[in-house]
Each structure stands twice: as C-alpha cells, then as structure tokens.
C-alpha cells in the first residue's frame, strides 16, 4: 500500500513541478495530492509499524535507488506533508501573481522541488543520494528565501544562508565519504557494532547542527527566517531545520556514538533553549523573534535526544525512552505551532506591511481570526496546558526527573537541565505575552495597523488546520503516543519491549476537562458581565483624559527587565539623545539587539581570514622572474628536507 501511496505522491509532486510556472491551480492540486500521499504513507508506516523497503532497478550516479520508510522517517514525513500542504494553500493567497509578478511562478516551482527533495532525504538509504537530495533542497530553499530579492537585506540573508548551508554540506560530504570509505559502500543502515565509526559523529553534529540551527551555529537562521516570505519561513522553521534533527536522530541511531556525545548534545540543547529565548526577548521584529524561538525549541528537542544518548551509554531504558519520545513529539509540535505562528505573522505582514512590533497594536479588532489563532500558537509554544507544547515538554521533564532519580552521573546533568528547562518555559511565556500584547491588543500604534484587514479563506484555512492539529495533540496525546514510541523503538531496537509508564490518558482527560471548563467559565463570565450592564470607558491612566496609542507600553520596555539580566550576551546597542534643557525640544531613544555570535565571533574571524588572503595575494603578481624564484626556493627546500630526513 505504501508503494501505491508513494507513487501517487511522487506523481503529484512531479505534476506540480511541471505545472508550477503556468497553471497555479494544477500546481496546488499536485502539491496537495503529493502531500496527502506522503501523509498517508507516513501514517500507514506509523500505525502498522511495517518497514517499507524498496530497491529499484534504476541507478543514479552509479548507485541503485534504494528507499526505505521506517517509523523515524515516517514521523518527519508526516510533519513535512502537513506543513507543505498547508503552506501551498497559504501561498495561493499570500504570494499572488498580481502582488509578485516576478517571483510568484518560480516560487511555486521551488516550493515543489523543496518538498520533493526533503521527502527524498527522509526516505533514501544511500549516502550519495542523500547528499544529492540535501544539496538540492538547500538550493531550493535559498531561492525561496530570496524570492523578494530586490531588497538588499533579503539578498544578504540569502547569502548568509547559502554560506552556512554549504559549510554544513561540506561537513556532511566529509561525513558520508568517510563513512563510505570505511564501510566500503554508500548504503546506509544500522551499524552500531562498528565501533571505529564513532568519531564520525562529531562531523554529523556540526553538519546537521548547522542545519538545525543550534546555538552557536544558528547565526544564519534569524535573518533567513525573518526575511523569507512567510510561507517559506513556516516551512523553514517548521520542517527544514527539523531535517537537521532528523539527521542527528537517524545517524545517532544507526552509527555508534562516542561516549561523550550525549552530554555534549544535552549541553548544546540547554544552551540553545535558554539563549534562544533570551535573544527572542530582545527582538523588535515579529518574524525575527519567532525565528529565535526556533533556536529555543531545537534546544528542547536536543535535550531529549542528548539524554536519550546518555541513557544508552548507561544502559537505562526508562528515562532514555521518555526523553527521546518527548523530543520527537516536540518535533511535531514545534513544526505545527511554529508554522501556525509564522502564518499568522505573515497575515499581519500582509495586512499592515510591517514586521516592526512598535508599529502594530490593537489588531484583534480588524483581524479577529489571526489574533485568536496566533494566541493559540502562543499558548502552545509557551508550553502551557491544555495544548500540545505542554505534552512534549512534560515528557522531556519526566525523562529528566527520572534521570535524577536514577542517582547516577546522569543526575548531575539532569538537575541543571530540568531547572533551565523550567526557566526556558517561563521566559517563553514572558516573550509571548509581550508579542500578543504589543501586536494584537491595546490601541493601534500606526495608520497601517488601524486600517489592516483580515486575511482571506485560503490563509485562514491553512492556519486553522495547523491550529486544529495543535489542539488535537494536546487533548488526545494517547492517540499519537504509539506512533512516537514506534520511532523510539526504531531508534534503539535494544529498548523494544521496555516499559514506559506514562499517564498520558490521565493527562488527556485533565486537558479535555480544562479546555471545556475554561470555555464554559469564560462564556458564563461574559454573560454575567453583560447582565449587570456593560459600560465602555477610557482606560485608567491616573486620571489622564487623552491617552494616545504612543503612551502604551512598548515591546522593548516589556522585555527590559529580562534583557537586562542577559545583557552580558545580548549586548544591546542603544542610541539615545536624552532631554537636557528645562523645556526639552527633542529626545530620542532606540535600542536593538545584534546577532552577537555573528557580529562578535564569526565576522571578526572572517575579517582575519580576509586580511591573510589579502596578504597572500601579494605573492601573485604575474612577474615570471619572481615565479622562477619561488620554484627555486621550493626546490631548495625540498632538497634540504630530503638531505636531512634521508636516513629514516
């Protein structure tokens, strides 16, 4: 059955690639058929647990095409299908031919190619084909990021993305080539008994970690995700960075890992989680803020994976399974709510033309759907019950608590990780109260915000689908649990059959009760308030009669207390012109948080390399005499080496 579904899916994607430029409706149909086929195949693999293995007679680059769909691949494929399909529907209204005559056509083709190559990365079991598909999806993502390439910052973001992606690709080339050399074939699969392959994990960590955007390898992520069109941001944040996670999960399951790997991954995870959200708090650009939250959530996923690796090292199945299951479920959850948030942010951008939070405000009045769906996503990403974000964070927490109770060396890592995960949750809550309050509540801060409009049915429909998925995982986690456990069992077959006592059904019952009662209480209170007589009056401002929108609390002030605590790494840049005279004429204040790692580490290092290259360039001037001299010096040096080292 999976074979048929994949054939349909592949045919749909090919049709959409061919039709993308000319026939947008056919393109949409193709993408949706492709997504549904992929989703069906993934669901079939996750429900039945059957591993689909297919070897074709076709060869590519001298290697036979070999595809395999197991639970780990299917987990990521399901996410790809949902977000890819929803994004295509969203695109039809967001990036129309009328608004973007130059890029709408190519955007559609690149979108299809991106989905197809991402799918291929997930199902291929050949190192060479993996690399080809990887490179193709990286390039398609580059063209999608730079669809609006007339703007300078978009080109800069695209360039940074391309450069970072190719550093990652370089590591992966080395990784797969060394793997192929040592095993004698490009075929991939379980080889945990080859202990000599363990050091290759570090190459994979850098390569896949760059793609996943873990701190401090995230430098390309904020600018690429914020400057891309919003449906592209959604799939980049929701799915492509998860492909980095897929690589780490896949190859830490298939290959042996060094004993320190788990600790390092867990440490990187905790760092990414806390610093990602700290940087997010310092942002004033709505989409850039969401991009930093991706760093945070990748951190949470890596905490799960890291502790699972530690558990493998210590031979403890219970908490390792819990932590990994939490991490994998968070892959789904983050993919869903982050895509939802980017769609909503795109809806705001579409309606107001700005991503600056200080120019927005009061949007709930004109965009009630977008505001409600963004609020739903905000509750989910803050990890609050009864939505899906809480379920996965709860599982990771349980894993960490059990690791503490195990009383081994793992406890020393689990205690700080649990505390910092709690801090991350509280910081994310602070950040999303800020975003919701400043963007959607209060009074509009600009003309554009006051005259915004709600988005149409296509954009709204895509958001509703993702929102519904978030609610479903939150209210009925039991339904999704077996699928996640199946992926965990594929990751480490040794754990198959181990008991994982999780009270997900109790949690689900509580969540349903909470949701129903919250709804009832809210409507009751609304009715009660209306019965006593609703009077509208100005907001209380200490008796001030003419409050203006500019007197509202800003995003920067809201986050001020926390950004102060993190100033050591955020290094906010302030430009201020304080009022001095008794009757001041003008005063100004502005603040922005740079990408610290990029500006204080990568760029200076790049500058040094450039200077060295400039110096080396002086040797190359085109004078034949000097070149002859170089030759002579080289020969003489060789002679010296031969003479001195000749005895050995």
């Amino acid at each position, binding site marked *: 059955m999976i074979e048929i579904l994949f054939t349909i899916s592949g045919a749909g994607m090919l049709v959409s690639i061919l039709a993308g430029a000319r026939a947008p409706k056919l393109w949409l149909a193709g993408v949706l058929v492709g997504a549904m086929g992929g989703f069906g195949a993934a669901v079939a693999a996750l429900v039945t647990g059957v591993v689909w293995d297919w070897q074709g007679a076709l060869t590519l680059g001298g290697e036979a095409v070999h595809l395999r769909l197991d639970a780990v691949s299917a987990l990521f494929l399901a996410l790809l299908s949902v977000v890819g399909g929803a994004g295509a529907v969203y695109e039809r209204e967001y990036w129309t031919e009328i608004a973007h005559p130059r890029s709408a056509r190519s955007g559609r083709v690149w979108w299809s190619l991106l989905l197809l190559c991402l799918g291929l990365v997930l199902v291929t079991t050949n190192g060479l084909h993996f690399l080809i598909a990887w490179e193709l999806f990286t390039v398609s993502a580059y063209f999608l990021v730079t669809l609006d390439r007339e703007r300078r910052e978009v080109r800069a973001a695209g360039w940074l993305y391309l450069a970072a992606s190719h550093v990652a690709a370089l590591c992966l080339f080395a990784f797969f080539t060394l793997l192929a050399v040592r095993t004698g074939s490009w075929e991939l699969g379980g080889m945990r008994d080859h202990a000599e392959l363990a050091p290759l994990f570090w190459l994979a960590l850098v390569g896949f970690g760059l793609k996943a955007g873990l701190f401090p390898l995230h430098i390309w992520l904020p600018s690429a995700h914020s400057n891309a069109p919003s449906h592209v941001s959604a799939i980049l944040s929701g799915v492509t960075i998860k492909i980095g996670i897929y690589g780490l999960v896949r190859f830490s399951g298939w290959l042996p890992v060094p004993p320190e790997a788990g600790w390092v991954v867990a440490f990187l995870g905790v760092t990414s989680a806390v610093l990602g959200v700290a940087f997010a708090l310092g942002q004033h650009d709505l989409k850039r803020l969401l991009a930093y939250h991706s760093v945070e959530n990748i951190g949470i996923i890596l905490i799960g994976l890291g502790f699972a690796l530690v558990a493998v090292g210590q031979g403890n199945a219970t908490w390792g399974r819990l932590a990994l299951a939490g991490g994998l479920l968070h892959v789904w959850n983050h993919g869903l709510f982050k895509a939802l948030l980017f769609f909503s942010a795109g809806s705001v951008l579409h309606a107001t033309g700005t991503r600056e939070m200080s120019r927005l405000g009061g949007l709930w009045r004109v965009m009630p759907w977008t505001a409600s769906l963004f609020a739903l996503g905000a509750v989910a990403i*803050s990890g609050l019950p009864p939505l899906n974000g809480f379920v996965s964070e709860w599982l990771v*927490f349980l894993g960490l*608590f059990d690791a503490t109770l195990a009383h081994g060396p793992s406890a020393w890592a689990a205690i700080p990780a649990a505390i910092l995960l709690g801090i991350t949750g509280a910081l994310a*809550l602070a950040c999303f109260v800020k975003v919701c309050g400043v963007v959607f509540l209060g009074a509009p801060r600009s003309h554009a915000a006051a005259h915004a409009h709600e988005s149409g049915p296509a954009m709204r429909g895509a958001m509703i689908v993702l929102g519904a998925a978030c609610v479903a995982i939150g209210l009925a986690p039991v339904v999704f649990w077996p699928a996640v456990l199946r992926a965990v069992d594929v990751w480490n077959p040794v754990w198959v059959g181990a008991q994982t006592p999780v009270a997900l059904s109790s949690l689900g019952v509580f969540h349903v009760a909470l949701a129903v009662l919250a709804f009832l209480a809210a409507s009751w209170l609304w009715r009660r308030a209306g019965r006593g007589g609703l009077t509208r009056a100005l907001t209380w401002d200490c008796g001030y009669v003419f409050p203006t929108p500019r007197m509202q609390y800003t995003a920067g002030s809201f986050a001020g207390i926390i950004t102060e605590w993190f100033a050591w790494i955020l290094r906010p840049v302030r430009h201020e012109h304080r009022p001095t005279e008794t009757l001041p004429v003008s005063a100004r204040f502005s603040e922005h948080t740079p990408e610290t790692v990029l500006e204080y580490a990568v760029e200076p290092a790049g500058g040094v390399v450039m200077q060295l290259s400039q110096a080396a360039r002086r040797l190359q001037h085109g004078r034949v005499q000097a070149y002859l001299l170089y030759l002579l010096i080289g020969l003489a040096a060789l002679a010296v080496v031969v003479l001195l080292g000749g005895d050995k």
Partner: protein
Amino acid sequence: MTLILDLILRLAVWLLLAPLLPGIINKVKAWVACRRGPPVLQLYYDLAKLWRKGVVLSTLASPGFIAGPAVAWVALTGAAMLMPLGPAGSALSFRGDVLLLIYLLALARFCTAWAAMETGSAFEGMGAAREVSYAVLAEAAIIAAVLSLSVQTGSVSLVTMLSPSAGAGAVLLAAGLFTVLLAENCRVPFDDPNTHLELTMIHEVMVLDHSGPPLAAILHGASVKLLLFAVLLVQAVLPMGELPPLGVAGALAAGVLVVTVGVGLVESLLARLAFRRVPLLLTTAFLLCLFALLVAWKGGAK
C-alpha cells in the same frame, strides 16, 4: 457516585475556605498595628458585592479581557484539584502531576498578563512585565524545590511526594518555598497589596481596569493560589506521615494558619524591597531550594 461527591466536597473546601486567608492576614496586620481592622470575612463580602455589580470595560478591551480572568480561575482551581489534602489525597493523581500543577499556575499567569495587556495602559503593561519577569526566577526555585521533594521520596507524583515525613533539608525548603509563596502571591516584600501608587505595584496594577464579576474572579483566584501555596509548603515541610487521618487534617489546618499568620507578620514587620533587589531575594530563594535538593540527595534519599 463517590467520585462526584469527593469532587464536590473538595471544590467546596478549596473555594469556600480560600478567601479566609487574606482576611486572616489583614487581621494579623491590624493586630500588630493595634487597629481593629476589617472583619476576617471581608473578602467574602467584597466578592458577593462585586459579583452583583456591572462592568466598566476599557474602550480598547477585547472579549479576552473577560475570558482571561475566567480561564485563570479555572486553571488555579484545576491546580487545587491536583494538590493532595492530607489523608484525602487529590482528585486526580498520576506520575508527573506536579509538573502539570506548575504549568497550570503558568497558564493562570499568562491569562492575567494577557488581560492586563488588553487595556493598552502603560501601568498595566509595567505590571504584566514585572509579573512575568520575576516569575522566571520563582519558577526556577519551584522546580528546584520539586526536584528536592522528588529525590527525597523517589517519586514524581504529588501524593507520594508530600505524604511521608519531611527530609533533612526541610528548614531550607521551608525558607525557600515561603519566599516563593510571598513572591508568587504578590505579598510584601515583593509587592504591597495595599499600595496606592500605580508605578510601584505588580499584581494590583495588572487588574486596575477590571471591575465587577471579572474582578471577583481575579480576587477569588488569587486567594485560591495563596491557599494552594500554603498547603504545598505545609505538606512539603511538616512531618505528618505517621499521624492518624484526623490528626493530619488538623496539623494541615494548623500549618496553613501558621503560614498565613507568618505572611501577616512579614507584612507588618518588613518594608517592601526596591525593585532592583527583588531578583536578589528570589535568587536567594532559588539557592535555598537548591541546597535543600543537595541535602536531600546526599542525605537520606531513597
């Protein structure tokens, strides 16, 4: 049937007794200051009065302004249902319910802060910012406290975590949790519920624009939260495991009373801190809980 009866009784205990605590605190404060003070049942009168009143809404407020307090109230009541009451246990208990409880408190915080941001007032924004920022440090302290209880009892479920006798780090834990109680419930020295200057408030300034039934929901929810923290503190610290059920119930009630009087005394005897010192005190609370955790680990852990 017994399940429903248990649930109703439990709700009655939590919802009816909670408004008593602020009354007791005010009585203690009045007693220390040699005043007569408001009656102990004052909050009940206030709630009844507010419930009958009409509502004045800010012109900027959305329906979320009223939904926020309602959802926060449900979240706090739900958290109370998870909290065991001595011999009666809790309404629903499972592995990891303690984390659900912590995150329900966070949900309540999200909703209150959301409702505060509705009005577009700088004062309320300020209050919401303080509330969510200081909660970050309080959250760290609570997680450390929960970890120490968890290590001490070898369990991740509230009923077993809170039932046996207190561990070696009880004093440290008591000090840490009491400080967190003061911070989370906006009492002196973190916040002054009686202050009259909007600029210096945290919780009170967030609800400036609320009136009528929504304000009643907020005030009642706040009292449930105070009772919740008092019950948590008493059960975490007091060695009640060996007493007969009635004795446990009595000890629990007495303990809650002692905590409440303690809050009243702190409010009478201490001035509130400058805002820049608040993080220091919260960090101290976190460290106390962390040391309790280390003691629990090195000491008689199971």
